[in-house]
């Protein structure tokens, strides 16, 4: 279903704001040394996750990346369980065992973030193979970044997906940087042409335009359900933060002017907000009310997560095997 009514538009806006707000709070947790380890911010790329996930149902699967909070929120996850996971608490989506880079939310079809670049490409394609073998009409979206296009695994699984017409959509979030290196320095030729070489229909789309992403994804998902997949999307986007939250001084690989330009002129939330007001879909007051409500949700969830309990130490050898309660007992 293409999102055309007010309710759908406002949900897409809300979801984008939820992602940005989640990330601002996560960054704050890092900066105030309340969060163990590091995390990778999705801020700036919200229209990609939301535009795509709004075209999916809970039965459709996604695989996510180390920069995965956006996908997780967009696929329907709750702040409380997400912040608990980021802080290593027992009530987190993965009981604190996964953390930021491994959040999985099976209830909404999120098969998990993955800390190996390109590591979930096989999983996503395998999920699509399962759908085909079992006659199920669900679709799997495989999120990955431009850096992951350098992994050989992608070419292996695209080949099989194309040979077997699997219902998988490869969604490459091209944010211009492969960690600390410009994409043009690591990617020869055209990225879409690589998918096209396997006979896979490919599209390049403005990843800062949530409606464009959503409209295209809706069409491709419907076709993938009918066995016309796979598809490839290259979504042109930008990450506002560094590779991870600790990557603060980054002028050696990209300029502040460039960052400023994307933030001021191409921000997906500002852009969509302007559109909603201009089209009379929402008033400025209504938009502010959404922002405030999301802000409060996040503040409450952070407070909850901070106060929540860590897993009991006895959990350390649980979940190693699915049928052995304590692997080391």
């Amino acid at each position, binding site marked *: 279903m293409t999102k055309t009514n007010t309710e759908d538009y406002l949900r897409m806006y809300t979801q984008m704001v939820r992602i940005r707000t989640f990330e601002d709070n996560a960054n704050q947790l890092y900066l105030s040394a309340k969060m163990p380890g590091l995390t990778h911010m999705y801020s700036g790329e919200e229209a990609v996750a939301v535009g795509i996930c709004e075209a999916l149902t809970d039965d459709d699967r996604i695989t996510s990346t180390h920069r995965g909070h956006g996908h997780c929120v967009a696929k329907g996850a709750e702040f409380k369980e997400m912040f608990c996971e980021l802080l290593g608490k027992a009530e987190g989506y*993965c*009981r604190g065992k996964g953390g930021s880079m491994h959040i999985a939310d099976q209830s909404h079809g999120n098969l998990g973030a*993955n800390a*190996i670049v390109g590591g979930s490409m*096989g*999983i996503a394609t395998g*999920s*699509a193979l399962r759908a085909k073998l079992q006659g199920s009409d669900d679709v799997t979206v495989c999120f990955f970044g431009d850096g992951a296009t350098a992994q050989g695994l992608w070419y292996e699984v695209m080949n099989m997906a194309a040979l077997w017409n699997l219902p998988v959509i490869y969604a490459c979030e091209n944010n211009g940087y492969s960690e600390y290196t410009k994409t043009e320095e690591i990617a020869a030729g055209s990225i879409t042409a690589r998918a096209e070489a396997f006979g896979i229909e490919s599209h390049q789309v403005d990843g800062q335009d949530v409606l464009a992403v959503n409209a295209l994804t809706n069409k491709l998902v419907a076709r993938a359900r009918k066995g016309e997949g796979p598809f490839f999307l290259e979504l042109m986007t930008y990450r506002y933060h560094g590779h991870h939250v600790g990557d603060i001084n980054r002028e050696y690989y990209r300029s502040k002017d460039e960052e400023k330009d994307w933030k001021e002129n191409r921000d997906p939330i500002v852009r969509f907000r302007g559109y909603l007001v201009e089209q009379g879909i929402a008033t400025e007051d209504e938009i502010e009310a959404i922002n405030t409500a999301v802000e409060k949700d996040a503040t409450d969830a952070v407070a909850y997560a901070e106060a929540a309990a860590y897993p009991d130490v006895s959990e350390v050898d649980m979940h*190693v095997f699915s049928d052995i309660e304590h692997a080391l007992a």
Partner: protein
Amino acid sequence: MREITLSQAVNEAIAEEMRRDPTVFLMGEDVAEAGTPFKVLSGLVEEFGTDRVLDTPISEPGFVGLAVGAAMTGARPIVDLMFGDFIYLVMDQLCNQAAKQHYMSGGKLTVPMVLRTNIGATRRSAAQHSQSLQALVAHIPGVKVAMPSSAYEAKGLMKTAIRDNNPVVIFEDKLMYQDKAPVPEEEYLIPFGEAHIKREGSDITFIATSSMVQVAEKAAALLDAEGISAEVIDPRTIVPLDEATLLASVKKTSRAIVIDEGHQSYGVTAEIASRLNEKAFYHLDAPVLRMGAMDVPVPFSPALEDITVPTPEGVAANARKLCAGEMIHAA
């Protein structure tokens, strides 16, 4: 009881489980019409069709990755890895992905997949088609590892593996595919983590995996004539490991040799020997010996290859020295 080959036993186990559970499917290189180079899977595509017996491109990380994803979402794939040496190619999918999904998700995701592959030198296949790499996999928490020592074990362990909700790697010795053993017509499963005492003895325990069980049994027969009574135990799965049965035997015999065809250093033999030392030290009359493959890449020349693996004569010779109270160096 009827006798069938190890190859037939594997084939039967897979066919039975595919009939029983429609979510089970098979994939790998040349698994369909070719039935693998070893012909282990011959006939399955005729019964189950190409939807459930999938020939893949030569893309080991890719198709093992597909199996992980299919397993995570409700299927039970059996992946055929044509040679155990190709494990190196799929390490990320197996060890970073399959092995860790259940743990990383706090128990929410499961990966019920079987990866069947092989081990075994002395087939004149040289360094990249002869390795026994079970220790690499056994080192990784989250994967179970089965090592059938005959057709009987191959069938029962395979059926258990397919029904297991965790990733399981089965290492079959490729030199044993044509070896026959009694296998009941009626259905049976062999539980994981239960060692089998193949032969009782009182003077020394041989703990041996896969084809090394045959080596140990032959060594035991040689020693019998000399009045040395050797017990032979097959752990059947090295993860989980039936430590209790091994310890009970060693406490009884007070001596042990651990035999596995993987390289000796940092290997399966080292792990088991170490556990025996830690938990049965005061019952031992001699150091626990490891006998693995020589720490060299597997050579091609028969003159060289044959001396890299444990033999019945070698095991018997070491056993004699242990029983005579001689301090010796491992072979």
